[in-house]
Protein backbone atom coordinates (compact mmCIF):
# COMPACT_ATOMS: atom_id res chain seq x y z
CA UNK A 1 0.00 0.00 0.00
CA UNK A 2 1.19 3.46 -0.83
CA UNK A 3 -0.23 6.93 -0.36
CA UNK A 4 -1.13 8.48 -3.69
CA UNK A 5 -3.01 11.49 -4.93
CA UNK A 6 -6.70 11.04 -5.62
CA UNK A 7 -8.36 12.83 -8.51
CA UNK A 8 -12.14 13.01 -8.50
CA UNK A 9 -13.86 12.70 -11.86
CA UNK A 10 -17.63 12.29 -12.16
CA UNK A 11 -17.87 11.68 -8.42
CA UNK A 12 -15.48 8.76 -8.65
CA UNK A 13 -12.08 8.58 -7.02
CA UNK A 14 -9.12 7.79 -9.26
CA UNK A 15 -5.67 6.98 -7.95
CA UNK A 16 -2.87 8.77 -9.73
CA UNK A 17 -0.49 5.87 -10.25
CA UNK A 18 1.95 7.43 -12.69
CA UNK A 19 2.96 10.78 -14.20
CA UNK A 20 5.08 11.18 -17.33
CA UNK A 21 6.46 14.46 -18.60
CA UNK A 22 6.19 15.09 -22.29
CA UNK A 23 6.93 18.51 -23.72
CA UNK A 24 4.68 21.11 -22.15
CA UNK A 25 2.29 18.59 -20.68
CA UNK A 26 2.28 15.83 -18.09
CA UNK A 27 0.27 12.68 -18.67
CA UNK A 28 -1.58 11.29 -15.65
CA UNK A 29 -2.40 7.59 -15.48
CA UNK A 30 -5.48 6.97 -13.38
CA UNK A 31 -7.32 3.97 -11.97
CA UNK A 32 -10.63 4.01 -10.11
CA UNK A 33 -9.77 2.88 -6.59
CA UNK A 34 -13.10 1.02 -6.34
CA UNK A 35 -13.06 -0.52 -9.81
CA UNK A 36 -9.74 -1.40 -11.39
CA UNK A 37 -11.48 -1.98 -14.70
CA UNK A 38 -12.15 1.75 -14.81
CA UNK A 39 -8.91 3.28 -16.07
CA UNK A 40 -8.05 6.40 -17.98
CA UNK A 41 -5.28 8.76 -18.99
CA UNK A 42 -5.58 12.48 -18.34
CA UNK A 43 -3.15 15.35 -18.72
CA UNK A 44 -2.18 18.66 -17.16
CA UNK A 45 -0.37 21.54 -18.76
CA UNK A 46 2.83 22.50 -17.04
CA UNK A 47 1.69 26.11 -16.77
CA UNK A 48 -1.44 25.03 -14.88
CA UNK A 49 -0.95 21.67 -13.22
CA UNK A 50 -4.06 22.04 -11.06
CA UNK A 51 -6.38 21.63 -13.98
CA UNK A 52 -6.81 18.01 -15.11
CA UNK A 53 -7.85 17.72 -18.75
CA UNK A 54 -9.17 14.90 -20.91
CA UNK A 55 -6.97 13.86 -23.82
CA UNK A 56 -7.61 15.51 -27.17
CA UNK A 57 -7.85 12.47 -29.41
CA UNK A 58 -6.79 8.86 -30.01
CA UNK A 59 -3.43 9.96 -31.32
CA UNK A 60 -2.62 11.56 -28.01
CA UNK A 61 -3.87 8.48 -26.21
CA UNK A 62 -1.56 6.31 -28.30
CA UNK A 63 1.33 8.62 -27.51
CA UNK A 64 0.63 8.47 -23.79
CA UNK A 65 0.32 4.69 -23.97
CA UNK A 66 3.60 4.38 -25.81
CA UNK A 67 5.38 6.55 -23.29
CA UNK A 68 4.18 4.39 -20.41
CA UNK A 69 5.12 1.17 -22.16
CA UNK A 70 8.55 2.51 -22.98
CA UNK A 71 9.17 3.60 -19.42
CA UNK A 72 7.56 0.77 -17.49
CA UNK A 73 8.20 -2.22 -19.72
CA UNK A 74 10.99 -1.68 -22.16
CA UNK A 75 13.37 0.48 -20.20
CA UNK A 76 12.91 -1.56 -17.05
CA UNK A 77 13.41 -4.85 -18.87
CA UNK A 78 16.59 -3.65 -20.49
CA UNK A 79 17.98 -2.30 -17.25
CA UNK A 80 17.36 -5.46 -15.25
Amino acid at each position, binding site marked *: *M*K*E*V*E*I*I*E*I*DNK*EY*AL*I*KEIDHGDIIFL*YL*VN*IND*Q*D*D*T*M*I*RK*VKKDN*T*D*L*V*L*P*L*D*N*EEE*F*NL*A*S*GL*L*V*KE*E*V*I*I*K*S*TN*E
Partner: protein
Amino acid sequence: MENNDWYQMPEDERYYRESRKMLEASLAGVEVKRTGKKKNVNTNKLKNKVVSLCLATVIGVSGLVATGNVIKSVVSKGSDKIAEFVDEKQDNNIVMDQVYNFKNEYINPAKEHINGTTNDYYIHYDKVADTLNNSDNFDRDLYMTCKSFEVDGLDTEEQINEVFKYNETYENLNDYLDKNDYSTYYEFEDDQVNSIIKDYELAEMNQEGVEVEGEKTL
Protein backbone atom coordinates in the same frame (compact mmCIF):
# COMPACT_ATOMS: atom_id res chain seq x y z
CA MET B 1 5.07 -8.54 -9.70
CA GLU B 2 2.19 -8.88 -7.32
CA ASN B 3 -1.44 -9.82 -7.70
CA ASN B 4 -1.35 -11.70 -10.94
CA ASP B 5 -4.94 -12.88 -10.81
CA TRP B 6 -6.18 -10.33 -13.29
CA TYR B 7 -3.63 -11.51 -15.79
CA GLN B 8 -4.79 -15.08 -15.73
CA MET B 9 -7.78 -14.23 -17.90
CA PRO B 10 -7.82 -16.74 -20.75
CA GLU B 11 -9.15 -14.31 -23.35
CA ASP B 12 -6.28 -12.35 -24.81
CA GLU B 13 -8.66 -9.96 -26.47
CA ARG B 14 -9.72 -8.71 -23.08
CA TYR B 15 -6.64 -6.52 -23.07
CA TYR B 16 -7.65 -4.87 -26.28
CA ARG B 17 -11.25 -4.43 -25.29
CA GLU B 18 -10.25 -2.81 -22.06
CA SER B 19 -7.71 -0.60 -23.78
CA ARG B 20 -10.50 0.70 -26.04
CA LYS B 21 -12.58 1.34 -22.96
CA MET B 22 -9.70 3.24 -21.44
CA LEU B 23 -9.36 5.26 -24.65
CA GLU B 24 -13.02 6.28 -24.52
CA ALA B 25 -12.75 7.23 -20.87
CA SER B 26 -9.60 9.23 -21.54
CA LEU B 27 -11.29 11.36 -24.17
CA ALA B 28 -14.58 11.79 -22.33
CA GLY B 29 -15.56 14.22 -19.63
CA VAL B 30 -14.53 17.71 -18.75
CA GLU B 31 -11.65 19.33 -16.97
CA VAL B 32 -11.51 18.99 -13.19
CA LYS B 33 -9.42 20.60 -10.51
CA ARG B 34 -7.03 18.66 -8.35
CA THR B 35 -7.91 18.76 -4.67
CA GLY B 36 -4.70 17.33 -3.25
CA LYS B 37 -6.63 14.54 -1.58
CA LYS B 38 -4.61 11.41 -0.86
CA LYS B 39 -5.35 7.78 0.00
CA ASN B 40 -3.46 4.54 0.51
CA VAL B 41 -3.89 2.14 -2.39
CA ASN B 42 -2.16 -0.92 -3.84
CA THR B 43 -0.24 0.93 -6.51
CA ASN B 44 1.54 -2.10 -7.93
CA LYS B 45 -1.69 -3.83 -8.79
CA LEU B 46 -3.22 -0.74 -10.33
CA LYS B 47 -0.10 0.23 -12.22
CA ASN B 48 0.28 -3.23 -13.72
CA LYS B 49 -3.24 -3.01 -15.04
CA VAL B 50 -2.66 0.31 -16.76
CA VAL B 51 0.69 -0.77 -18.17
CA SER B 52 -0.90 -3.86 -19.67
CA LEU B 53 -3.65 -1.86 -21.31
CA CYS B 54 -1.16 0.62 -22.71
CA LEU B 55 0.90 -2.27 -24.04
CA ALA B 56 -2.23 -3.59 -25.71
CA THR B 57 -2.73 -0.19 -27.28
CA VAL B 58 0.82 0.00 -28.56
CA ILE B 59 0.87 -3.46 -30.07
CA GLY B 60 -2.60 -3.18 -31.54
CA VAL B 61 -5.63 -5.33 -31.90
CA SER B 62 -4.33 -8.28 -33.85
CA GLY B 63 -0.88 -7.86 -32.48
CA LEU B 64 -2.33 -8.13 -29.05
CA VAL B 65 -3.60 -11.57 -29.79
CA ALA B 66 -0.70 -12.68 -31.93
CA THR B 67 1.74 -11.59 -29.28
CA GLY B 68 -0.34 -12.88 -26.43
CA ASN B 69 2.60 -14.84 -25.13
CA VAL B 70 4.61 -11.67 -24.92
CA ILE B 71 1.96 -9.90 -22.94
CA LYS B 72 1.40 -12.87 -20.71
CA SER B 73 5.10 -13.09 -20.07
CA VAL B 74 5.26 -9.44 -19.20
CA VAL B 75 2.30 -9.32 -16.94
CA SER B 76 2.45 -12.69 -15.27
CA LYS B 77 6.14 -13.21 -14.78
CA GLY B 78 7.48 -9.71 -14.64
CA SER B 79 8.83 -7.20 -17.05
CA ASP B 80 12.15 -9.00 -17.29
CA LYS B 81 10.40 -11.63 -19.38
CA ILE B 82 10.02 -9.23 -22.24
CA ALA B 83 13.65 -10.07 -22.86
CA GLU B 84 12.32 -13.28 -24.36
CA PHE B 85 10.94 -11.15 -27.10
CA VAL B 86 13.63 -8.57 -27.48
CA ASP B 87 17.35 -8.58 -26.92
CA GLU B 88 17.84 -7.12 -23.50
CA LYS B 89 21.33 -5.97 -24.36
CA GLN B 90 20.12 -3.58 -27.01
CA ASP B 91 19.34 0.00 -26.31
CA ASN B 92 15.84 1.23 -25.75
CA ASN B 93 15.27 2.72 -29.16
CA ILE B 94 16.21 -0.51 -30.87
CA VAL B 95 14.00 -2.45 -28.53
CA MET B 96 11.13 -0.13 -29.31
CA ASP B 97 11.86 -0.52 -33.00
CA GLN B 98 11.70 -4.27 -32.65
CA VAL B 99 8.28 -4.08 -31.10
CA TYR B 100 7.04 -2.02 -33.99
CA ASN B 101 8.87 -4.13 -36.54
CA PHE B 102 7.14 -7.18 -35.22
CA LYS B 103 3.87 -5.38 -35.54
CA ASN B 104 4.66 -4.26 -39.06
CA GLU B 105 5.93 -7.61 -40.21
CA TYR B 106 3.23 -9.86 -38.89
CA ILE B 107 0.28 -7.83 -37.79
CA ASN B 108 -0.32 -4.96 -40.15
CA PRO B 109 -0.41 -7.14 -43.28
CA ALA B 110 -3.16 -9.20 -41.74
CA LYS B 111 -5.03 -6.10 -40.71
CA GLU B 112 -4.55 -4.58 -44.15
CA HIS B 113 -5.85 -7.75 -45.67
CA ILE B 114 -8.95 -7.51 -43.56
CA ASN B 115 -9.38 -3.99 -44.82
CA GLY B 116 -8.85 -5.16 -48.38
CA THR B 117 -5.76 -3.12 -49.04
CA THR B 118 -3.16 -5.73 -49.79
CA ASN B 119 -2.72 -8.85 -51.84
CA ASP B 120 0.11 -10.40 -49.94
CA TYR B 121 -1.95 -11.32 -46.96
CA TYR B 122 -1.65 -15.00 -47.37
CA ILE B 123 1.76 -15.70 -45.96
CA HIS B 124 1.29 -13.33 -43.08
CA TYR B 125 -2.23 -14.38 -42.48
CA ASP B 126 -1.25 -17.99 -42.13
CA LYS B 127 1.42 -17.08 -39.64
CA VAL B 128 -1.00 -15.43 -37.31
CA ALA B 129 -4.14 -17.35 -38.14
CA ASP B 130 -3.92 -19.72 -35.24
CA THR B 131 -3.54 -17.01 -32.68
CA LEU B 132 -6.07 -14.74 -34.32
CA ASN B 133 -8.55 -17.53 -34.22
CA ASN B 134 -9.82 -16.61 -30.81
CA SER B 135 -10.20 -12.94 -31.53
CA ASP B 136 -13.48 -11.20 -32.25
CA ASN B 137 -11.61 -9.34 -34.94
CA PHE B 138 -10.66 -12.49 -36.78
CA ASP B 139 -13.07 -13.07 -39.64
CA ARG B 140 -12.99 -16.83 -39.78
CA ASP B 141 -15.60 -16.91 -42.51
CA LEU B 142 -13.49 -14.68 -44.67
CA TYR B 143 -10.35 -16.56 -43.89
CA MET B 144 -11.78 -19.92 -44.83
CA THR B 145 -13.38 -18.51 -47.94
CA CYS B 146 -10.20 -16.88 -49.13
CA LYS B 147 -8.09 -19.84 -48.21
CA SER B 148 -10.37 -22.11 -50.17
CA PHE B 149 -10.18 -19.94 -53.24
CA GLU B 150 -6.44 -19.61 -53.14
CA VAL B 151 -4.48 -20.66 -56.22
CA ASP B 152 -4.00 -24.16 -54.94
CA GLY B 153 -7.73 -24.58 -54.73
CA LEU B 154 -9.54 -26.69 -52.28
CA ASP B 155 -7.38 -29.19 -50.52
CA THR B 156 -9.65 -30.91 -48.13
CA GLU B 157 -13.25 -31.75 -47.63
CA GLU B 158 -13.09 -29.76 -44.48
CA GLN B 159 -12.33 -26.64 -46.49
CA ILE B 160 -15.10 -27.36 -48.92
CA ASN B 161 -17.52 -27.79 -46.09
CA GLU B 162 -16.33 -24.59 -44.49
CA VAL B 163 -16.99 -22.66 -47.67
CA PHE B 164 -20.42 -24.05 -48.11
CA LYS B 165 -21.25 -23.78 -44.49
CA TYR B 166 -21.21 -20.05 -44.91
CA ASN B 167 -21.81 -19.69 -48.62
CA GLU B 168 -24.32 -22.13 -49.95
CA THR B 169 -24.39 -20.79 -53.47
CA TYR B 170 -22.21 -18.87 -55.83
CA GLU B 171 -24.55 -15.92 -55.59
CA ASN B 172 -24.46 -15.89 -51.85
CA LEU B 173 -20.71 -16.05 -51.91
CA ASN B 174 -20.53 -13.14 -54.31
CA ASP B 175 -22.95 -11.18 -52.18
CA TYR B 176 -20.80 -11.90 -49.21
CA LEU B 177 -17.67 -10.69 -50.93
CA ASP B 178 -19.40 -7.64 -52.39
CA LYS B 179 -20.93 -6.70 -49.10
CA ASN B 180 -17.55 -6.83 -47.47
CA ASP B 181 -15.83 -5.10 -50.35
CA TYR B 182 -13.47 -7.97 -50.89
CA SER B 183 -14.65 -8.77 -54.37
CA THR B 184 -11.77 -7.05 -56.11
CA TYR B 185 -9.32 -9.32 -54.37
CA TYR B 186 -11.10 -12.61 -54.46
CA GLU B 187 -12.66 -12.77 -57.85
CA PHE B 188 -13.09 -16.22 -59.22
CA GLU B 189 -14.33 -17.76 -62.39
CA ASP B 190 -17.49 -19.70 -62.97
CA ASP B 191 -15.60 -22.88 -63.75
CA GLN B 192 -13.83 -22.61 -60.44
CA VAL B 193 -17.13 -22.38 -58.68
CA ASN B 194 -18.51 -25.27 -60.65
CA SER B 195 -15.50 -27.32 -59.71
CA ILE B 196 -15.95 -26.41 -56.11
CA ILE B 197 -19.61 -27.31 -56.21
CA LYS B 198 -18.74 -30.59 -57.87
CA ASP B 199 -16.15 -31.33 -55.23
CA TYR B 200 -18.59 -30.41 -52.57
CA GLU B 201 -21.20 -32.73 -54.00
CA LEU B 202 -18.65 -35.50 -54.22
CA ALA B 203 -17.68 -34.91 -50.64
CA GLU B 204 -21.31 -34.94 -49.58
CA MET B 205 -21.97 -38.18 -51.38
CA ASN B 206 -18.85 -39.74 -49.98
CA GLN B 207 -19.93 -38.76 -46.52
CA GLU B 208 -23.22 -40.49 -47.20
CA GLY B 209 -21.44 -43.67 -48.17
CA VAL B 210 -22.17 -43.42 -51.89
CA GLU B 211 -19.39 -44.68 -54.07
CA VAL B 212 -18.40 -42.01 -56.53
CA GLU B 213 -15.82 -42.24 -59.22
CA GLY B 214 -13.80 -39.24 -60.20
CA GLU B 215 -11.31 -36.91 -58.71
CA LYS B 216 -11.40 -33.39 -57.50
CA THR B 217 -10.82 -31.00 -60.31
CA LEU B 218 -8.94 -28.32 -58.42
